């Protein structure tokens, strides 16, 4: 699976506005990169471009595996998680149902779901409807799919925002374990990540 993400000379624009130009960097297995920059600089757009939703105006996004470069569609369909501002949880369904769907859809199984429930201490939430959960609890339920369906590249958009200090430390442990297993993390952040990460600043000006 994905062992390296390479971004070469990437430019992104939204409508008429150029977000950034000629951005190049790489993320290797076991490495975490924190994207910083002011609001509207294009951090979220960069994550969505890596996930394949936004077509770059110029430049290249490449995924490499152990055996050389991967087809971008295959790499995206099975190799990455995108966790955006929204949790993707249906208010009318229970946290358990939603976690099961998200995990099974992304390629997880019952054992990995049980593991995720334990790692994020979701047991008491599973029977509750998502509408009853707090923002932090929803975020934890959404984060669970990172564990429940193991994929090497994590694209995280402000993953810490609704979490309290204890949960942030807990997430830090999960991230460290993911990196130790050869995972890659690319996160857009305002606050510092709870783990050592290389910082890359996006977008000097508009």
């Amino acid at each position: 699976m994905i062992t390296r993400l390479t971004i070469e000379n990437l430019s992104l624009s939204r409508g008429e506005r150029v977000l950034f130009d000629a951005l190049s960097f790489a993320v290797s297995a076991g490495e975490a990169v924190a994207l910083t920059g002011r609001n509207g600089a294009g951090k979220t757009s960069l994550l969505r471009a890596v996930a394949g939703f936004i077509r770059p105006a110029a430049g290249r996004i490449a995924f490499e595996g152990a055996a050389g470069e991967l087809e971008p569609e295959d790499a995206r369909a099975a190799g990455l998680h995108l966790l955006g501002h929204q949790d993707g949880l249906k208010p009318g369904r229970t946290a358990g149902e939603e976690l099961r769907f998200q995990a099974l859809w992304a390629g997880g199984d019952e054992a990995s779901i049980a593991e995720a429930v334990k790692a994020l201490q979701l047991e008491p939430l599973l029977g509750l409807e998502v509408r009853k959960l707090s923002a932090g609890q929803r975020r934890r339920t959404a984060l669970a799919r990172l564990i429940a369906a193991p994929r090497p590249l994590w694209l995280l958009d402000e993953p810490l925002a609704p979490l309290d200090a204890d949960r942030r430390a807990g997430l830090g442990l999960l991230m460290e374990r993911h990196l130790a297993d050869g995972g890659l993390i690319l996160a857009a952040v305002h606050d510092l990540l709870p783990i050592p990460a290389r910082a890359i600043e996006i977008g000097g000006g508009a």
Partner: protein
Amino acid sequence: MRSLGVLYRRELGMAWGRGGGPLLACAFFACIAALLPLAIGPSPERLAAVASGSAWLALALSSLLSLERLFERDFEDGALDLIALGPASLETVSAVKCLAQWTANGLPLSIMAPVVATALGAPLSLAVITFATALIGGLGFAFVGGTGAALALGARRGGVLVAVVVLPLLAPPVIFGAGAIEAYAAGMGWQAGFAFLAAYCLAAMGLSPFAMAAAVRNALS
């Protein structure tokens, strides 16, 4: 295949979940049928003449009612991102969503259709063909309507817009479906209308997933 089953069950669960989508669509169907005699007058002959056709029109409108949120709810809460990054192409995902929509809404509505038509005064002998055309037509409604719902993603005034975009496209199935029933009632060959209806729905199933996937990709970008 297994993951498609997971998606299909989720869609069904959401359709049948709180708010009772199918029941609501059936209730809407019944409301139109109740208002119709008030609008046309209670004369049984006049009502019987339009019963099957009206049932079909009401069916088209009721199918549309529940379609509007088919993609919108997943788009709004970010679940569409997750679904797009799954093992199946967006074309397949769209087709599965429409099939689930048909099972959850089209099936109950096509069971309602002969009941409504008979209540309006259509002869009981038309019940079977009314059910059959409604069942197949519902499949076409789901796929064509799903295309409208996908195109209207991110638009203001989604609901009315879906109706304006989709209703002109529903002319062929309404014509073929109601035509087949009418021909059957008149003792003429109903097979032609029925075959055209089936052909339309097959073509819609084959082509509209591509339009839906293109529309969803556009909305996500």
